[in-house]
Every structure is written in C-alpha cells, then in structure tokens.
C-alpha cells in the first residue's frame, strides 16, 4: 500500500484520528520536560547570563516557522501535480501554525535582543528575513480567505506559495547583501558541540522534538477540521441542488 492511499480523505480521517491526541501528548510532555530542564537544571551562560534560556523557545519556533513554509511548499506541489485534496487542505492548515511560530520567534528574539544588543529590534538580516516571512504568511492566508471557490483557492494559493518561495529565498539573499548583521551564527548544526555546550544542547533537542510534535498535531487537527468543513460545504451544495 503506497503512501498516496492516505490522500484519500476517508482513509486519512481514519488513520489520523488516534494520531492527534498521541502527538498532542508527546508535544506536551516534551515541551514541559525540555523547558523545565532548560530553565531550572542548566547553568547560566558565562557571557549571556540567564537570558540565554530563551533559546528553548526561540530556536524551536524559528525552525518550525521555516519548516512550516517548506511543508506548505511540498503540499502545494503535491496538490498541483496530483490533485489530492488532503494535500491542499494540509497546506491551508499549516499556514496559521507557521505564522504563529514566526511571531513567537520574532517576539522571543526581541526579548532576547533587548539585553544582549541593547535594542528590541535591529534590521539584522535574520530578523528582517523572519519579518519578510511573516508578511508572506499573511498574504498567503489572506488569499485563502478571499477566494470563495475551494478548488480555485487551493490552486491560486499553491501558485502563490511556489512563487513566494522563490522570492522568499531571493529576499533572504537580498537582505544579506543589504546589511551584514550582528546576529550570532547558527547555534545548531551537526557539529553542535562547537556552538552550544551539551548542557544546553540536550534540553534544546527535547524542546525541538516537542515543537515538531506540536506542529504535527496542530496541522493534523487543522486538516481534519478543513476536511469536515469541505464535507459540510458539499452537503450544503447538494441541499441547494435538491431545493432547486
């Protein structure tokens, strides 16, 4: 049985029904454990003091902000190529989660930047890129809400997502060109030991796992809601037809 069989809404609904509470529980446990571990059982950074602990919210939300857009891009491509309704609805469901993650990353970044850089906001390339990503999310969501016909909305937002992705990457490089920043380098990579000490690294990984599970749970929940809303829409249409 191929993965595509889950594109059938009925099968999707059946398969994901038990997944949502499980993922939700995993998310809650991971985030609580990770945050408690990070806040109370790790030492202060020798340069940044206790302010460094906002990393446990900042980094996972920033990661998910980008991953959510990437997921929307893949889902949009699947919709445009294979016309699976679940895919289009999953892209739609991911957008509000993504925009919230972007907002969390921006706000925690400002809170962190205030004591570190002495300013709430700096036109640093990374911050600016996230602000731009935030604008892209807003446009995408606004287009979904503006188009009445569900299939046309899915088509138009998918095209916007593809073009927007190209321009988002382009903006990232343009912004780098425009201002070399004061943001610290990537704090997470495969050679993480160099950047973040183990004591910070493990609780951070737990937090990231929690955010991934949270994202998956919210997107599945949103997709299930969208599928139900679509069924309702079709039923209403049929009722209107029966009346006519």
């Amino acid at each position, binding site marked *: 049985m191929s993965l595509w069989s889950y594109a059938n809404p009925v099968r999707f609904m059946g398969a994901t029904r038990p997944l949502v509470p499980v993922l939700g529980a995993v998310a809650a446990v991971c985030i609580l454990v990770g945050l408690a571990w990070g806040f109370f059982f790790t030492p202060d950074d020798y340069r940044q003091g206790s302010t460094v602990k906002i990393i446990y919210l900042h980094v996972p939300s920033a990661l998910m902000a980008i991953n959510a857009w990437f997921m929307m891009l893949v889902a949009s491509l699947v919709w445009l190529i294979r016309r699976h309704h679940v895919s289009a609805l999953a892209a739609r469901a991911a957008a509000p989660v993504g925009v919230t993650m972007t907002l969390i990353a921006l706000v925690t970044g400002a809170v962190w930047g205030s004591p570190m850089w002495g300013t709430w906001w700096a036109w640093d390339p990374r911050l600016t890129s996230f602000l731009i990503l935030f*604008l892209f999310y807003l446009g995408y969501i606004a287009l979904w809400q503006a188009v009445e016909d569900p299939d046309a909305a899915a088509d*138009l937002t998918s*095209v*916007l997502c593809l073009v927007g992705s190209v*321009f988002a990457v*382009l*903006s990232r490089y*343009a912004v780098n*060109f425009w201002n070399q920043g004061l943001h610290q380098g990537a704090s997470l990579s495969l050679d993480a030991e160099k950047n973040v000490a183990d004591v910070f690294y493990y609780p951070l990984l737990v937090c990231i796992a929690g955010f991934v599970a949270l994202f998956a749970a919210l997107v599945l929940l949103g997709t299930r809601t969208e599928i139900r809303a679509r069924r309702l829409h079709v039923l209403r249409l049929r009722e209107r037809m029966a009346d006519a």
Partner: protein
Amino acid sequence: MIRLVARDLALAVRAGGGFGLGLAFFLVVTVLVPFGVGPDTARLGAIAPGLLWIAALLACLLSLDRIFALDREDGALDLLATAPLPMEGIALAKAAAHWLTTGLPLSLAAAPLGVLLNLAWPGHLWLAASLLAGTPALSLIGTFGAALTVGLRRGGLLISLLVLPLYIPTLVFGADVARRGAEGLDPTTPLALLAAVTLGCLAGLPFAAAAALRVSLR
C-alpha cells in the same frame, strides 16, 4: 500580442484611461517628503535615493488592480482567453503595457524629481538607470498579483498585501544602485543583481500569471 499592448496603450492615454495618475502621485509624494522630515538638504539628500524608489514603487502599485479588472468587467478578458493568443502572451502583453504607462514615465521623471530632494549629482543618472532596470520587474510581479486577484470583488487591498513582499528584492537592489551612485561608489554589482531579478521575473512570472488567470477565469 503587440496589438494587445497597442490597444492598452491607446486606452491608457485616452480620456479616463488613468495615464499620468501614477506620475502625479509620484510627484505629490516627493513634494510631501520634506514636510515630513524637514527641509534640511543634507538629510534629504541622504534619504533621496531610497525615498524616490519607494515612491516609484507605490506609484506602480496604484494601477495594478486595473491591469485585468477593467477587461474582466466588460467581458474582454473572456474574449481574449478564447482568442488565438496563449494566456502567457496575454500576461506578458499586459505587463509590457503596464510598464510602458507607469514604469517608463516614472524612470524618466525620477531624475528631475531628484533635484527637489537634493540628490547628489551622478546619483540622478544611476537612479534613472536603476528604475529603468527595476520597474519591469515591478510590472511583471504586479501582473502576477493582479492575475491572482482578478476574480475577487475586493482585490485592490489584497493585491498590495500579496505584491509588496514580492517587491523586496527589487527594492533592495534598486535603491542600493541609486544610493551607491549618489555616494560616488561603484554601483555595478547591485545593478547586475537588479537586472538578474528583472530577467528572472521576465522568464518565469508570465507562466505563473497565466496559470493564475486560467484558474480565475473558470
């Protein structure tokens, strides 16, 4: 395609076509700036390149929702869609007509308006050059945005929300060309990047706009 461009140009310059509105808007914004930031010529000169670019960008934005909306209202868009002209050709012709009626006059008017804002001398030429190289991208992106919103009743505001984030790379490179030109630095790097953005838009966006148009029309 050339016929469609020619018809749009004829429509724009005749009564009620709205030609010159964007240009007037550009002038008014430029005149308003000193009232907002003060008459200090040094400060005006420092912000002039970026400001003129933003004013030109907004003037471009002003006429975007007319690109397809007028043809949609009177049914001409349906007839164009059935004519032996590919949708990509329609999108490209519409972008070309939009550029000829807004981008080109704005580029030509920018250098004289630079005098009002005390733009340093060689900056005038670089400003005009950057607008000439960059405004086609603005028209192409705008045509894509207009194609996305053509079927909507209140597309005007939405189009700004969709298009403005897409304008960022063009604005960054374009304003940098003008700024470096005014400061006597070498502006060829951003100019090359700006040209690359425009050419990339020219190569790709007519297809995206055509795809959006097909969806909006059905």
